[in-house]
């Protein structure tokens, strides 16, 4: 299974994705947001431990380089609001159940809490989880489900943050016209 097929499949499964230019949503059914039957689970506030765990994961996915890290641009605040407000009750349940399962798995494997591990150890754990989460031949565990959601929202929150969107990528709010073909000048467009 190729990367992009997988993205499309995931988009369908999660029921949300980013819409690009007008025709692509038609093709991919982008933006469909199914309202599922309400579950018993109400909006669950993130506790400090959960928030810290998400911070660490996000900065492992998108660390500080010459450009800011995920947490430096408000990615986690975006993620938490999105999970609370936009996710269906079922998605929210998957997210929190998976997060708990992830922490339990780490505790079982290492006998320590994820937050007490070294960055190197944390990175190894996330790297393994990342590989299994996007491997189609492997069954999807609750921890995988959580991670897929978390990664998707981390990338969304990061690249569509004000800092990255306006200062790192090529921000061009009013192009004034369209150049159909030109040599790539090293900066990818910010807005779709």
């Amino acid at each position: 299974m190729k990367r992009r097929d997988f993205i499309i499949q995931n988009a369908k499964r999660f029921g949300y994705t980013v819409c690009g230019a007008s025709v692509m949503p038609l093709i991919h059914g982008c933006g469909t947001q199914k309202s599922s039957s309400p579950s018993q689970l109400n909006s669950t506030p993130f506790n400090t431990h959960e928030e810290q765990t998400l911070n660490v994961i996000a900065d492992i996915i998108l660390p500080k380089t010459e450009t800011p890290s995920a947490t430096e641009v408000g990615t986690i605040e975006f993620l938490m609001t999105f999970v609370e407000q936009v996710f269906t009750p079922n998605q929210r349940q998957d997210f929190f159940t998976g997060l708990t399962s992830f922490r339990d798995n780490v505790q079982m494997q290492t006998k320590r809490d994820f937050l007490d591990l070294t960055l190197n150890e944390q990175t190894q754990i996330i790297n393994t989880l990342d590989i299994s989460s996007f491997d189609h031949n492997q069954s999807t565990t609750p921890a995988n489900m959580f991670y897929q959601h978390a990664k998707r929202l981390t990338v969304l929150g990061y690249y569509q943050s004000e800092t990255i969107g306006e200062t790192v990528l090529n921000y061009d709010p009013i192009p004034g016209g369209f150049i159909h073909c030109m040599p790539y000048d090293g900066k990818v467009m910010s807005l779709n």
Partner: protein
Amino acid sequence: MINNDHTFDAIVVGSGISGGWAAKELCEKGLKTLVLERGRDVKHGDYPTAMKDPWDMPNQGKLTQDEIAHYPKQTRAPFVSGYNKHFVLKDTEHNYEEKTRFDWTQGNQVGGRSILWGRQCYRMSDLDFTANKQDGHGVDWPIRYADIAPWYDYVERFTGISGEKLGLSYLPDGQFQKPWELRCIESHLRDAIKDKLNRYLTIGRVANLTEAIEGRGPCQARNRCKRGCPFMGYFSSITATLPAAAATGNMTLLANYLVDSIIYDDKTEKAIGVKVVNQLTLETDEYYAKVIFLNASTLNSTAIMLNSRSERFPNGLGNDSGQLGRNLMDHHFRAGARGDHEGYRDQYYKGRRPTGFYIPRFRNLNASTQRKDYLRGFGYQGIGKRANWNAGTGAPGIGAHFKDQLTEPGDWYIGMTGFGEILPYENNTITLDHTRKDKWGQPIKIMDAKCRDNEFNMRKDMKESAAEMLEVAGFKNITMQDSHPVVGAAIHEMGTARMGRDPKTSVLNAYNQVHAVKNVYVTDGACMTSGGCQNPSITYMALTARAVDHAVTALKNNTL
């Protein structure tokens, strides 16, 4: 009974894409015209999200669960979002019933859905106007291309359509502004399918102005049209036709007035006015005129006629044929293909072009392109771009390298979906339940429409032919897409008060007049006898201008 400030020469019901044209033409020809819009007043500039970036919007513009609760039906189709929800009616307030799933995007405000439209404009041809006669589905159109061609010319010059002339009889050229340009991957596909399959690919013909018209535009290539455009870069009623109508001094525009029914007078055998309800106060009133244009949108125009019951018309105004509410059409889409291409890695683009490409119909044009498995045809709309960071939302990878990868453009890809014709089926219907009323006293609408074998067989070809074209053009990772077609989802509702030659089998005549009530004209999508596969708005505009010309001449000659 008739009081002066309630009496006009003409009444236009609705201010969307066809109502705006009716208003402009009637006013410019000197008629005192009342335009009734059921929704709120919106003026050019009332675009709260037009300048918002994703990071300016709560949840980057995604609706919250609390908001989605107001749009249980409309959120099934990917249209309403935080960026445009103020222009889309809530299902909780404007509900309808479905015997089969029907995705109806409703946008009632001054300007209607012309603020939100997709802006693609393709003329219909005699291939379309003769289709019903040729294969026996539906009834024959009472007009041919020659009847409407000068009116296409007329409305296109004012609207401002950018496009490329191809010289095809079955997709006639129009009065085009200079076209937008194809990205290099799209030109690549164009050359390959011309060379290997003798099919055409052209830039979308779109009502985005590449050249300014009277202070409108040009388009700034922001591709945020569906939020309203501060630059008037695309055509809408509130930027173009309604201001033109207002400039004559002949227009009275009343927002928040919905039309309950048309008042029919037995003695004169004409309509004398309309009964209205103020949507805010629920007060009722009446307005009178010599001629009435129904432009309330396909389903609402038909609903008004169905609700206009009298002794003469017990089943709805002009419904002698029993066809009112029948033959509901849309286009079926979301069947196509996508693929990646490994070439052109040093090439990029600048700006956000507000249209994709178009592949004109290539099936059932003549004997050599005839299909055994289905009638009629489809065109494709698609787009070719480079992948971006969005790919990282669902792909493996972490760390600095992953981050660097996502800040570079990815491979070129092309995606396309067919837009196919739905045959006019008598049993695809809108009906009213008069025993149940909404808060404005209007009967509940019941939708019952579905795609059938002809459409399903066509869809198979739509996805396979899309994949075939990507294949011959050297694309990789080609995947075909299909989804269950839902009528209404393409937001091209058509039919339900069809034009025809015979009052026994149709509702409107060749000039969009109700056969039995000649001073009522219906010129929105309700009038369509068949749907073609072309985006239909430009046809409504042309038919409207033509009908107004007919009405004004008839009024002068005292024949209305």
